[in-house]
């Protein structure tokens, strides 16, 4: 850090400089995250001849969908200064719910999908209630929910996968090609979800309160805002994304796998954090989260193509998280 001399400066004396730089700084942050993604991309393109082609890039996007969807909802929660550990197993539970509704009960696919998404909302609602009303720390509340969801998914599915082999329209939600071209629907779903999230976070009252709760929850409450209610709403929103992710993963696999969700929550949180969202709350963006999710799936894909063992992929991902967060913090201090 060459800018160490500037770090200790009194705040008030930098007023003018900072004011002009504020907007630029935010954009710079996203630009740098994007630049790292490109760098990774270029690296793998050079390192392996099998990396840069239409089908592989599509595969990367396709594999971003589940983590990306989970990460979108989690972005809101993390900006409030909270955390949601229940998104991975919650996703499995929602997938199972979808299977139970569509395969076992014979509910029409559309209703099954809506049911699964709403069930995700219910998981989030319970999380929100526990966090906002019972005041259980988010880490604990969602850790408990993570275990509950894991167990319920196994109970409801009798610990066996539920196959959607008789519902081709269900699997087409993920693997179908809406516009005829060879481009999976799942990516479109993620794109739409990301745009909706970005609009909600940046343009709506909900988004504004998400930031203000994360900046200073007590001051927000004393400003006459029912932080309790808004936190419940935000966790519920994250829950809806859990439900959507459950649909997307089970549609992709053509089956609801009750035991596979654990671990996704950490990948999703990693995506959010790599994207520059602060775990202490108040700061973050959807664009960053999408880029973070893309970085993770690009790394996984590229390392796999280069035949690096799964174990080492995790090691590398861990290091990437450290570097990304450290770089983000250093950047913020320097500006």
């Amino acid at each position, binding site marked *: 850090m060459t800018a160490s001399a500037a770090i200790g400066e*009194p*705040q008030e004396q930098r007023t003018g400089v900072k*004011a002009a730089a504020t*907007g630029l700084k935010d954009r710079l942050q996203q630009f740098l995250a994007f630049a790292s993604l490109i760098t990774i991309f270029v690296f793998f393109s050079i390192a392996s001849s099998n990396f840069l082609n239409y089908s592989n890039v599509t595969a990367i996007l396709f594999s971003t969908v589940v983590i990306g969807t989970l990460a979108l909802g989690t972005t809101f929660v993390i900006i409030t200064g909270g955390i949601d550990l229940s998104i991975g197993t919650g996703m499995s539970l929602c997938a199972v719910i979808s299977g139970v509704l569509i395969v076992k009960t014979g509910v029409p696919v559309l209703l099954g999908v809506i049911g699964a998404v709403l069930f995700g909302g219910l998981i989030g609602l319970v999380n929100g209630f526990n966090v906002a009303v019972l005041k259980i720390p988010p880490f604990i509340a969602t850790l408990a929910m993570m275990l509950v969801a894991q167990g319920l998914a196994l109970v409801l599915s009798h610990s066996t996968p539920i196959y959607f082999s008789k519902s081709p329209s269900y699997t087409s939600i993920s693997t179908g090609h809406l516009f005829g071209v060879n481009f999976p629907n799942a990516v479109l779903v993620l794109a739409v979800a990301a745009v909706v999230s970005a609009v909600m976070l940046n343009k709506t009252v909900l988004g504004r309160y998400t930031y203000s709760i994360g900046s200073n929850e007590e*001051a927000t409450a004393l400003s*006459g*805002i029912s932080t309790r209610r808004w936190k419940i709403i935000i966790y519920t929103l994250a829950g809806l994304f859990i439900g959507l992710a459950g649909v997307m993963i089970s549609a992709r696999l053509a089956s609801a796998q009750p035991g596979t969700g654990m671990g996704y929550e950490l990948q999703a949180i990693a995506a959010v954090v790599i994207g520059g969202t602060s775990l202490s709350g*108040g700061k973050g963006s959807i664009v960053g989260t999408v880029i973070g999710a893309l970085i993770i799936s690009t790394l996984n894909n590229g390392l796999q193509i280069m035949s690096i063992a799964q174990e080492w992929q995790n090691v590398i991902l861990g290091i990437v998280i450290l570097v990304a967060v450290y770089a983000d913090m250093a950047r913020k201090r320097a500006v």
Partner: protein
Amino acid sequence: MGDAIPAARTAAGGLPLLLHVQGVSKGFPGVKALEDMQLDLHAGEVLALVGENGAGKSTLMKLLTGVYTVDEGEFFLNGEPYEPVSPKQAQDLGISIIHQEFNLMADLTVAQNIFIGREPRGSRFFLNERRLNAQAGELIERLHLPLRPKQLVGSLTVAKQQMVEIAKALSYDAKLLIMDEPTAALNDAEVEVLHDLIRRFVRPDTGVVYISHRIDELRRIADRITVMRDGRYVGTRETPETTMKEVISMMVGRDISGEAKPVGARADREVLLEVSGLSTKALLKDVTFELRKGEILGFAGLMGAGRTEVARAVVGADKINAGTIRLRGREIQIHNPADAAKHRIGYLSEDRKQFGLLIEQEVNANIGLSALRERFQSYGFVKDKAMRATSEEYVGTLSIKTPSVAQTVKNLSGGNQQKVVIAKWLAKDCDILIFDEPTRGIDVGAKEEIYRLLNELAQQGKSIIMISSELPEILRMAHRIVVMSEGRVTGTLDSDGATQETVMHYATLRPDEHPEDAAEIGLTEPALSGTGTTNSEET
């Protein structure tokens, strides 16, 4: 401008000056924080250093304690050139600083805090807790402090926490003690105790640099007063030979109009808010008062008397056990601050950073926060343009000094931050504004502006509750004064008859022990208004 200090490094008697600052300058990219600053501290004296926020006091202190290094100029300590390179070195040379914001660990004991980093060891790896407590006990004894070594610092009052800081600073065998705003969080009685402590510390070979915003107290503690403005030395005065008015005008570079009394008595105005029998589990007992339209109602009392608790209970931030709140004659239920905001009651906390502002966010986001759903949205979407326009309007009318409404609030000065909080509640169109220590941590010039603003708001028909630990401020601003002690209202005074002495009298009443005493004084005290809020009529 400015009195020249003789370049000599010795005081009149030939003794070296304890501290001599000569021609010190310090710049940061784009700004000159200090220019040709000078300062003399004699051994055995308390020197007050005053100046508005941003005058450069903190920069000077950071240079002195080795946090920054000087660009130009020199320091001399006891006549020797002194170039501190680290806070540790400054400490070793006997310079201790007590910052405005304490560096204490709430979960550790008094003794553990005082000797943090220097714990006596039993052997290489084990602490000797008994010796630690004994050493702390000795120190506390020597300083006559009302502390016990094993108390948890988090359980102490602000005043006692400060004593821990002082004990810590003095435990380094300090020769030069720098105190940055030591009384900002103290009430008058606690300030007395602190001043006692300082007087005991000052011996022929030690000295104190005392930085303060509270001009009124300088006369009581400082031997001389050095004023700085805009990073420069303005002048030094012997305390007995100057007036506070002169000091203030040196600080701000202009004359302050001074004592503006509130306009007219408001006894005829309609009663807006009636609070009766308010009690909380923790502290408040049977608190009753009324607030009239266009009135500034002062709340006075010692630290811990329950003034902030009344405010928090009224706005629903804390739970109440008993009591009713009537607004325009109708009883209302307030369970949380959202309910209070609906009834147009806004609370401006004493701790702006923790309870008032989104410090990392823009001026705009802060001003629009409370009124967001009401004024700045349609169908859930934020109307950014309307919000920005409103924010800009308030930046103009309240003259908030900021380059733009996109500025991050943390970069504004205390006075301007306070105005941002005021703007937030004005945007919400509040009828009742509860100000908790509205001028805490705000410099003199900005204080005057806040006072003027409060008067204007009252004239516009807003009703204001003003909680303050600064008696002159309350006496000057309030139409009526509610005085509290130990969770109860012990008197309600008209500001016409009220003096510092009468207010202090009620503030120090022990309602639990001497109810009959309170009653007696209530009957004989002409300044009491007959609003039924004294103990005499309660019992």
